[in-house]
């Protein structure tokens, strides 16, 4: 009961903003929400599976352009395109990640940077004559839910944070499952994971595809909110910001990543008035945080499984309550 309280409190706090916040702050929260969902999906790849992936914006772009093209050219309602956007991004991830999945650390890092740049250039060069070049695609419809038109910041607030909520729940399920654990084993020791029966290449690919699927769906929300899309949305810098959110917040910890999204996307907004010094302080803060909180703001915690019912059957001595935890390097 007590453990359920903080989530309830958080949920209650999340209900408040549309009632008290101005449109500006609502939109700041929306931006944070979008970053948060993207960061959750990146966390799967970077935090859970431990792969150096700095090109997440590429997957978001594929989803965003899928929605934009389907909506403007075929007139498909925006929200209907969401699963398709996800699938397109997932398929793209499958295609590009397959040959590079075995690359180690820094090599993978650069290749993913390369992918995000290739995607951005391809979009800018108006690939297949579909993407509208540097101008992008404009005139994307607002989303409708059962005939209700979503266009105000407060409407989007519900849409975005609703999706963020669903994402948190599903991904926390995933963390404590066969799939999630497999990713953690790979992060900890790829070779040992292979040796104990985990098809690490398939799981790494799976993490990429699922992460990309989610990022693609966020792409749909992003374009429906802006009603247009252009390559400028998906620069390398956006990918770097997502990467920083995950590591700064706490790789592998969803709460940490959420906190990271608030800090990295939200704080610069709060310090708008310090224009010149803003980015300077931001960079310095990033360094200091990494030095003094190496595991991120909320480091990932080992899994806690409820085993009480089996323990009785084993009739062993009383379990040793969690000792020696939280001493991560």
């Amino acid at each position: 009961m007590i453990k359920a309280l903080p989530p309830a409190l958080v949920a209650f706090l999340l209900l408040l903003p549309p009632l008290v916040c101005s449109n500006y702050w609502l939109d700041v929260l929306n931006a944070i929400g979008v970053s948060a969902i993207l960061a959750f999906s990146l966390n799967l790849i970077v935090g859970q599976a431990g792969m150096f992936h700095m090109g997440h914006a590429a997957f978001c772009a594929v989803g965003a352009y899928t929605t934009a093209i389907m909506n403007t050219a075929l007139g498909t309602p925006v929200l209907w395109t969401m699963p398709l956007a996800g699938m397109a991004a997932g398929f793209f991830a499958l295609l590009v990640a397959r040959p590079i999945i075995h690359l180690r650390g820094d090599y993978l890092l650069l290749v993913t940077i390369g992918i995000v740049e290739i995607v951005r250039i391809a979009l800018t060069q108006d690939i297949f004559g579909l993407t509208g070049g540097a101008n992008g695609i404009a005139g994307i419809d607002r989303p409708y839910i059962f005939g209700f038109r979503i266009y105000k910041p407060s409407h989007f607030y519900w849409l975005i944070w609703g999706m963020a909520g669903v994402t948190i729940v599903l991904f926390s399920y995933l963390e404590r499952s066969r799939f999630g654990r497999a990713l953690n084993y790979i992060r900890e020791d790829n070779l040992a994971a292979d040796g104990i029966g985990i098809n690490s290449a398939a799981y790494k690919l799976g993490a990429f595809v699922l992460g990309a699927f989610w990022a693609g769906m966020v792409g749909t929300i992003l374009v429906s909110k802006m009603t247009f899309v252009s390559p400028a949305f998906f620069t390398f810098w956006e990918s770097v910001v997502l990467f920083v959110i995950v590591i700064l917040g706490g790789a592998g910890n969803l709460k940490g990543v959420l906190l990271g999204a608030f800090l990295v996307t939200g704080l610069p907004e709060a310090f708008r008035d310090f224009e010149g010094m803003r980015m300077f302080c931001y960079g310095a803060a990033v360094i200091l945080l990494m030095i003094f909180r190496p595991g991120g703001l909320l480091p990932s915690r080992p899994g806690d499984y409820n085993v009480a019912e089996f323990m009785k059957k084993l009739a062993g001595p009383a379990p040793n309550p969690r000792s020696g935890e939280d001493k991560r390097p």
Partner: protein
Amino acid sequence: MIVAERLSWVLKLRRGHKLNMEVFFQQFSNGLAIGGIYALIALGYTMVYGVLRLINFAHGDLFTSGAFLGYTFLVSLALGQSAGTVGAILLVVLLVMGVAAFLGYVLERCAYRPLRRSNRLNAVVSAIGASIVIQNSIMLIYGPQVLVFPAGMKPNVIVEIFGLNFPLMRFFLFGASVMLMLGLYFFINRTRLGTAIRAVAIDQDASRLMGIDVSQIISLMFMIGAALGGAAGVMVGVYYGQITFTMGWIYGLKAFTAAIMGGIGNIPGAMLGGMLLGMVESMAAAYISAGWKDAITFLVLIVILICRPTGLLGERVAEKI
């Protein structure tokens, strides 16, 4: 008779292709000029990586600092004007290398050393933070606008070789890059200190047991890397003439690509990677499409890494089971 006919046929072919070959060589030299600079910056990446296994994302911004310091010394303070243009540039390059080395030392001390025992990802993020700090410091000090080295700053002589035009400065630039690289190569491979550096790169703990001051070596590598980056900054500034506070990022990324292409941690690899990258860029722009150029270079990189997962000259390290 037949021989003569053949000969004339060959000559005809030559003549027909003459123009194309000329252009090809011109593009080749363009690629070398760009590649030389990439290689010079890539060296800094590679050396720091070699001893620390850290991607120094701030390296591109050290390069920018070099360019702006060069501006301050050459244009604002007009240092070394009595020594003539070339003399002044040489003097300033040396001066900037010193200041950049100091910057590199400070950077390593503040942003990386506390993280040496920590997760690799943390160091990457800290490096991104450092990059933001340096870039914005430059903007706060010099302002956001483009700064220009006066056009008369460098000798503007055009050399004609085999009917092709080359700016004389390009030879200096290329020559200076190669000299710095060779110097470094000999320093690493032929001196006592270089041996210590190689030892640290292979095994820090063992080196420590052998009495090598590992921290000192790492600082030294950072200083050398930063000095080379700074030197590249001044040279690019003087040669191309315009500098902006954001310029480091594009050069940094290219140099990083070059270093990885050649096999990061490997000095000849950085040179090879830089030249190759410059060449691929130049050829892609010349014979395929300038707009797609960067996409093509990344594609080449990916293909290289798929075929050779640790770069062209990188060692394949099998994991011990």
